[in-house]
């Protein structure tokens, strides 16, 4: 019940899912596949509170211990429960104007802003990493340079209107880049499949843990 049955369930589900995806023409398997796809999402949905409980535990302990910055923890919990209760009991659906305001004016712009900060990090990573330190690093440097120049009007301007850089950039992207990525992809696929098999067979079972025994 405690260990063997969960492992058996893992294996049975994995086999069922593989058969349902590879084979057609069996009504039972088609139903099973649709059902499992749906169940996967429902299971995760009903487990959703695990995250909020963890946030509440961690920040609750920070507050009760009056640890450095505990006031931020108070604010985080206010935001969490405020938004949750507002959504469930006041807005009641995703088209409520207050709800869309919170999303469009706060959450979406914050998301877009953090996403956009990558522009800084991509700059500093390029500055730090692309040095002629070794032949390998030099290759990185040169291809990145060609790419960056070939992608914007600046590259053409530097060559007096000639599109050589942009053509070179296209070629590098379509040929060597694509070849290197494909080699990685093929190897990674085998690694992933083998890992999944070991999990399904219960050979790797760190997740079964030792609690409650």
């Amino acid at each position, binding site marked *: 019940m405690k260990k063997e049955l969960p492992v058996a369930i893992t294996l049975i589900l994995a086999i069922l899912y593989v058969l349902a995806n590879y084979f057609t023409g069996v009504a039972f398997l088609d139903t099973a596949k649709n059902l499992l796809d749906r169940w996967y999402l429902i299971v995760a949905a009903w487990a959703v509170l695990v995250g909020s409980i963890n946030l509440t535990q961690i920040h609750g302990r920070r507050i009760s211990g009056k640890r450095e910055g505990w006031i931020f923890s108070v604010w985080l919990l206010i935001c969490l429960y405020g938004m949750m209760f507002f959504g469930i009991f006041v807005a009641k659906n995703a088209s409520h104007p207050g709800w869309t305001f919170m999303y*469009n004016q706060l959450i*979406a712009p914050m998301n*877009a802003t953090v996403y956009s900060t990558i*522009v*800084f990090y*991509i*700059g*500093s990573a*390029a*500055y*730090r990493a*692309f*040095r*002629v*330190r070794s032949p390998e690093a030099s290759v990185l*440097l040169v291809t*990145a*340079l060609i790419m*960056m*120049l070939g*992608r*914007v*009007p*600046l590259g*053409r*301007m530097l060559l007096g*209107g000639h*599109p050589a850089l942009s053509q070179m950039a296209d070629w590098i992207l379509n040929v060597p880049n694509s070849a290197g990525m494909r080699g990685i992809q093929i190897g990674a696929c085998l690694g992933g499949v083998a890992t999944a098999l070991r999990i399904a067979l219960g050979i790797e079972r760190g997740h079964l843990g030792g609690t409650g025994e």
Partner: protein
Amino acid sequence: MWEKLANIDRRWLYALMIFVIALALIKPIGLAIVPSADTQKVYDIVEQLPPGSIVWMGMEFSAGGIPELMPAILSMIRQGWKDGRDLRFVCAGMWQMAGDMAEQAFSTVKAEFPDKEYGVDWVNIGYKPGGEVLLQQYQNSIIETAQGVDFYGNDLNTLPLMKEFTSLKQAKLVAIFCTGTPGEKEYIKHVTSPNNIPLIEAAISVSIPECMPLVQAGQIKGLVAGMKGAAEYEVLVGAPGSATAGMDAQSFSHALIIVFMILGNIGYVLTKNKKQAS
């Protein structure tokens, strides 16, 4: 001295980056932009439509796609309305913000064409739930599928354009603006391939590699590729806008990063030589 070039505080780069991008946006200098073949094709297809043709616009994106896609939409409307060509546009979308996006586009261009009238020259159906199934149903009856109302809540039966345009099959051209799924694949599968309607697309830079095979296969007749494509389109239509300014910002920020890379390498090489000498 040279060590400094190899170890410039990254915050200088960050501050300069904000500065050059702001400068390029406020005072664009307009570095020469040469239209690529794919953008030229989009322009030619729209140009060759007979005056008065109805174009279906699929607004398949949300706010995140605005910087790259909105300039292309504006350019297309301008191209369709200029010189008395009087193309008419019907907009809808499978993405929730479709109606807002169309509203934003047409309210901007309308200011330049005061005689254009809602309901006659364009209609904004907006977002309707149902995903790709919608595309099937729009071919049977647009008004029924849209449950009778447009984005603003008007009765679609009262709009003159909709009396003439009852099915998506009647569109002379389908133009879509996409950031992901649902997007071009759904249109090709349900609308443009079965009915043999030409499809043109503007897509964000990240999805261009995925679109290229479809362009090669002729399923997409013309492609406005990201901000670069949008800037080219603006140039073709003769109305430089945010994408053109954006391309200046792109050039400047790329140049800035390249300058830092070069400085770093100069610093690195000179420091190394000095160490070897001593």
